[in-house]
């Protein structure tokens, strides 16, 4: 089964249709997504700002991480759950959305940045007495994280707009390629 066929099938399942057409469930999940964005992005931003040395310089980096990370993780888990439900409500259109694809790509890069930071950079700044402005590598990790998550918020917000949707042809050939859209065929 091709991904396109799978998401077409998913879009027709009663649960997906119900969620899509629901008067309160969909906006409520959307609200949960925004609330947890505050929890997740809020705690990420404060940690990234600390990495950049722009706030709480007297507080060790390890202390900020240890005390905020559980909240970041909790926010992330609820974001993924609510985000999956939002995708599930509109699967086919989201699958073919350039902004949704861009968002996933940026999230992949953000994940890579997290992995690089925790495996390579963090061990060097984790000493309990590490106060002041962190070394360059940590500052870069903080800046990259900030830029990527801001990009993710932007692309996430743009998913709502249909300028580049598959059912709005003609579009640039490159765009149709990037969104797996074949004009005139299934998936419109």
């Amino acid at each position, binding site marked *: 089964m091709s991904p396109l066929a799978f998401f077409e099938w998913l879009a027709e399942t009663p649960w997906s249709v119900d969620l899509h057409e629901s008067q309160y469930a969909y*906006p409520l999940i*959307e*609200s949960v997504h*925004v*609330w947890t*964005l*505050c*929890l997740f*992005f*809020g*705690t*990420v*931003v*404060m940690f990234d*700002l600390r990495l950049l040395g722009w*706030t*709480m310089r*007297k*507080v060790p980096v390890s*202390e*900020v991480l240890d*005390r*905020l990370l559980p*909240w970041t993780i909790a926010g992330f888990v609820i974001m993924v759950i609510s985000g999956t439900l939002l995708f599930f409500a509109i699967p086919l259109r989201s699958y073919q959305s350039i902004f949704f694809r861009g968002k996933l790509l940026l999230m992949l890069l953000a994940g890579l940045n997290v992995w690089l930071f925790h495996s390579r950079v963090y061990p060097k700044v984790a000493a309990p007495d590490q106060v002041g402005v962190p070394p360059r590598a940590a500052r870069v990790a903080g800046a990259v994280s900030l830029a990527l998550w*801001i990009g993710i*918020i*932007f692309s996430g*917000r*743009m998913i*709502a*707009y249909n*300028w580049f949707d598959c059912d709005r042809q003609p579009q640039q050939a490159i765009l149709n390629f990037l969104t797996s859209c074949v004009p005139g065929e299934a998936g419109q």
Partner: protein
Amino acid sequence: MSLLPFFQWCYQTPVGEAIRESTWLFPLIEAFHLVGLGLTAGAVLLVDLRLLGVGLTRQPVAQLSAAAEPWLLGSVTLMFASGIPLFLSESMKCYYSFAFWVKMTSLFLVLLFTFTVRRRVTRSGLTSDRPLLGRFTALISLGLWCGVAWGGRWIGFS
């Protein structure tokens, strides 16, 4: 006195008109508004989590509050700078939107609360002896901010 004429005037401002006529402006400003919300949340949570007895518990409340304050002021400024143009472009929709009034009421209350009661509580150092005062302050602050975020998102559904 009805606020309707004011909302009608807002709707006709050149800024509001320019945003309505553009495809990209509204979404773009809105995305900045959302980033501003996240930033505000970070600056608020840093202090409110601490007041709740979690988060950075080893740091004095007053110090965390001082660290968060410039980011709070900066992000709230970004929220206003992006939110006002958005409002101008759809003030008539806002006037008839229940969510908009919930948001504005919560916003007014939370700003008032933050820069009076919450500021005094966080600066006073009282919360080490009276943790309940801190918890209560944080719950009011977080509850009102949640109302602002909820109302903001829900305007788009009405």
